[in-house]
């Protein structure tokens, strides 16, 4: 699904990613953990196509295609989805208007007919339930006045509507209480599919109690310094990041 090879990226001339290597097969969930400032969010922004970040070396293959050559919107239509750590508020654009345009852009790209108003409504009702959201949300301006939990659940709901092949969850657990976290995790788990891969980026192990990863990678100073099974996350929870990040240049295959 996704192959990242020797990826270097910088912003405003400051190098953040310093040679990331990662292989994410179809149907798997991989977690990226790491301390603040290790480059977790930069990695997700680069994968989503944020042009503020400059890729200085390396390559990323998505379903065999050169991802870095695709503009952000093309990646989205082609099945890449990022759930934002800080979902953006857009006054004056209703959730319904936004989502119907987005869903139909993606459907058109996949050679499907646009959904009419009735089919769209039926689909939103079904998918909103997964993330415990009510229909009144569709009339509200996108993310405006949403609580932290509503914003994150809305990201999950959008993911369910857009049916991506690759979903990147950027610190989806930040700012969530335990109940909201469970709702989001449950929603994500229903979307698990042999044809769909997840990259779950998180600072804390807590989320991984509910979204159980196949692999865990530890990011430190722009490199993956350790990879392992889900037990690696538990070890990090017990011992903190210091025991890994203090050991320089511990390269690992994924």
């Amino acid at each position, binding site marked *: 699904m996704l192959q990242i090879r020797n990826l270097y990226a910088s912003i405003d001339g400051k190098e953040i990613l310093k040679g990331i290597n990662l292989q994410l097969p179809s149907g798997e969930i991989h977690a990226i953990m790491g301390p603040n400032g290790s480059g977790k969010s930069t990695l997700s922004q680069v994968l*989503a*196509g*944020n*042009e*503020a970040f400059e890729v200085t070396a390396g390559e990323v293959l998505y379903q065999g295609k050169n991802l870095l050559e695709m*503009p*952000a*919107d093309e*990646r*989205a*239509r082609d099945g890449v*989805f*990022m759930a*934002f750590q800080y*979902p*953006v508020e*857009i*006054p*004056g*654009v209703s959730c*319904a*208007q*936004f989502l*119907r*345009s*987005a869903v*139909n*852009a*993606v459907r058109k*790209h996949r050679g499907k007919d*646009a959904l009419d108003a009735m089919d769209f409504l039926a689909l939103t009702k079904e998918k909103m339930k997964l993330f415990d959201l009510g229909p009144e949300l569709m009339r509200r301006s996108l993310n405006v006045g949403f609580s932290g939990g509503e914003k994150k659940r809305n990201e999950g709901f*959008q993911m369910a509507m*857009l049916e991506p092949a690759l979903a990147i969850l950027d610190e989806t657990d930040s700012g969530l209480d335990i109940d909201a976290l469970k709702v989001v995790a449950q929603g994500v788990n229903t979307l698990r599919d042999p044809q769909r891969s997840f990259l779950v980026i998180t600072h804390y192990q807590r989320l991984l109690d509910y979204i159980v990863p196949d692999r865990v990678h530890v990011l430190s100073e722009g490199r993956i310094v350790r990879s392992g099974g889900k037990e690696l996350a538990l070890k990090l929870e017990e011992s903190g990041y210091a025991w890994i990040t203090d050991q320089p240049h511990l390269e690992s295959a994924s």
Partner: protein
Amino acid sequence: MSQINRCFELPGATHLAFNNGSLSAEHQGELGSILPEGVSLDLDQGIELRLGEGVELDRPIHLAYHNSAAVSPGSPALETRIIVGPGSRGTLIESSSGLCGNAQGAAQHSVLQLGEDAALDHVKLQREELSSIQRASSKVSARARSNYRSHEINIGGGETRRQLDLTLCGEGARCELAGLNLAFGRQRMESRVRVTHAAAGCATDELYKIIVGDDARALFDGLILVETDSQLTRAHQSNRNLLLSDRARITSMPRLEIYADDVRCSHGSTTGELDAEQLFYLRTRGFTPDAARALLVHAFASEILEGVEFTPLREWLTGEVLRRLPGGELIGEAA
């Protein structure tokens, strides 16, 4: 851009068409059956539309001006007088369309008088051909406890200058003034709005928005004047603008002049570009750059358009705004 449709009838409105200031032949002999009860139209000197006392219009009246004749500068204006009797209420739409070519059309001047306790919802829509030169003005007086709502919407014209001069002359009169100027290519638009609080206890809520792209230029000059005896005035003026290109220019001159001491007044002006984070968010959901921009520009304009209560007009305006935005057709269906 395709040519602006000459025929512009809004379903559900009483339609009165004027060509070069004269009532269109289509209405000859049938005025009596078109005009609602309590409404009279006098065409001896310009156009005079009069709502008697306590008249409630159940559908908007649409005065559609079409000017096909060029005039020399300084020619007299075509004048429309609208008199809304005490306690009467209704919606009035004035639209202007016209000339092709770099020609000047006759200036259009409206005088509106709102009697005591009257309420008028007034939409003034300018949809001239993109090469024409056009001047229009409205002079409004609002008596005690009357309520004047205005939407001035400019989407056409090569070079247009619009002026609104409003006097709140009776105690407790209120006005709500909204404006939307949308200029692309080499369009030039000027809006000058002058509100005089000449009586106590009146209120003004004013919001003008300007969107400019390409090489267009626009100017907003807004003055709220509060006279000495106009105590307990409440007035708020806001001008918010969106620049869609490096070459476009906006000049904003918001002004307050206050000569009374017990008032609550404020004004503000902001000019900005589209938000890069919002654009990126939309693109990660599959919106092309054009569609993402169109959605955000439409959202900016919709704050004004949603205030237009007559649904057929609001929908027509929404369609026109989207039609002028690259990528607008991509979001039109969902908008």
